[in-house]
């Protein structure tokens, strides 16, 4: 029962994040890159002011799978690094997202090498 509730929360929070994004697209004619940047910064900001934790405790993957999670990891890495020194404060963000970043480049490269764009139809 508890696992069902967890997934329901994930669905609700993730859906809500995406619906807010859709509302932004509908109202402001934003392109996808802009929406991604906006939510990434929102995630980073929420982490910086310490609020992200509360949403994550409630919604789990609902907030970490959207790009907000990427922003959170960047900010969390920087905050963690700041405890050690200025150098780590600057590099901590990128270090924290190294796995995702590497995966995106490596998978992107390999898959783009072997695939072709498919015909699009009306």
């Amino acid at each position, binding site marked *: 029962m508890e696992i069902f509730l967890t997934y329901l929360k994930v669905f609700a929070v993730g859906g809500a994040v995406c619906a807010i994004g859709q509302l932004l*697209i509908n109202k402001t*004619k934003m392109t*996808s890159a802009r929406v991604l940047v906006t939510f990434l910064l929102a995630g980073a900001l929420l982490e910086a002011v310490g609020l992200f934790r509360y949403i994550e405790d409630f919604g789990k993957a609902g907030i970490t799978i959207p790009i907000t999670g990427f922003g959170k990891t960047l900010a969390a890495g920087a905050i963690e690094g700041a405890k050690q020194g200025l150098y780590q404060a600057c590099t901590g963000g990128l270090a924290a997202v190294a796995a995702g970043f590497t995966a995106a480049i490596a998978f992107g490269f390999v898959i783009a090498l072997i695939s072709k*764009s*498919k*015909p*699009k*139809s*009306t």
Partner: protein
Amino acid sequence: MKKGRQTYLVDKKVYIAYTATIAGVDEGKGRLRDFFDYVIDESEFGCKSHEKAEIKLRKHAIESLLKNAGKNPADVDAILGGDLLNQLVPSGFSAREFDVPFCGLYSACATFGQSLATGAALLCCGAQNVVCCTSSHFATAERQYRFPLELGTQPPPTAQWTVTGVGCALLTTERQKFKCPKVTAFTLGKVIDMGLDDPNNMGAAMAPAAYDTISAHLRERGVGADYYDLIVTGDLGKLGRELLCSMLEQECGAVKDRVNDCGCMIFKDRQKCGLGGSGAGCSSLVFCSYLYKTMKEGGLKRILFVPTGAMLSKDSSLQGESIPAIAHAVAIEI
């Protein structure tokens, strides 16, 4: 003979003797499929890229036009035409296949009107045979003006679908055995900008240009809208057509059943084409197939063909520019 500020009456008899069309896969599933000479079965047309496919489409269309007309490239005085891509790559590259003088023209999606007008003017200066050819390809336009094909974006409700296809026509002063449509007058359009800046709403940006050119044509030629059986615009789509009608109605009464748009004619309603087709190939494909054949069979006697174009680029939109639009009107009568 020039008449008024923008309109020219064609003094010689300029026949549109032959046409040739090649349509894309989706256009071949649309309303006008029976009118196309050839429908390709895959968007790359056996090439390595869509740009190469567009070059090949043009080459094949012009070749089949010349074959139908029984002409050699040596008989043709010039190939006029354009497309939507930077540096008119498909037009220029396809013209290298023919030993014929070439003139690349650009009025965005209105290029076919510009080609017919320029062709008629050349024939009045002594040329005998001129080929007019414009094309567009969904995939090449999408990459240049919008996003990569595989990017998961949602088209806004005012978006249109770029037509894949080529239409080409042979203009000639040689007397024809059969009754042929003739270019009798044309009006060169001005660039009109009503300050709209949404690159996903081209119909609304182009409608004022169409209105400006049509009303100038009617005024300067001294005829009413009812002189023509059909006033047909290039790619305004449903919204642009509605806006054009409401502007024209203020001037010349009810015209709704007399005004149509190639972009509204080409696809079926259930095809996910947004508000209709667009692109330099849209007007040429519809004119060279459906409109031309209907005229030849006597279904239409006089049409005012008004291809419309939006002169924007991806960068101009990003720099905050609004969308300037143009329309050229060509009167075609049989």
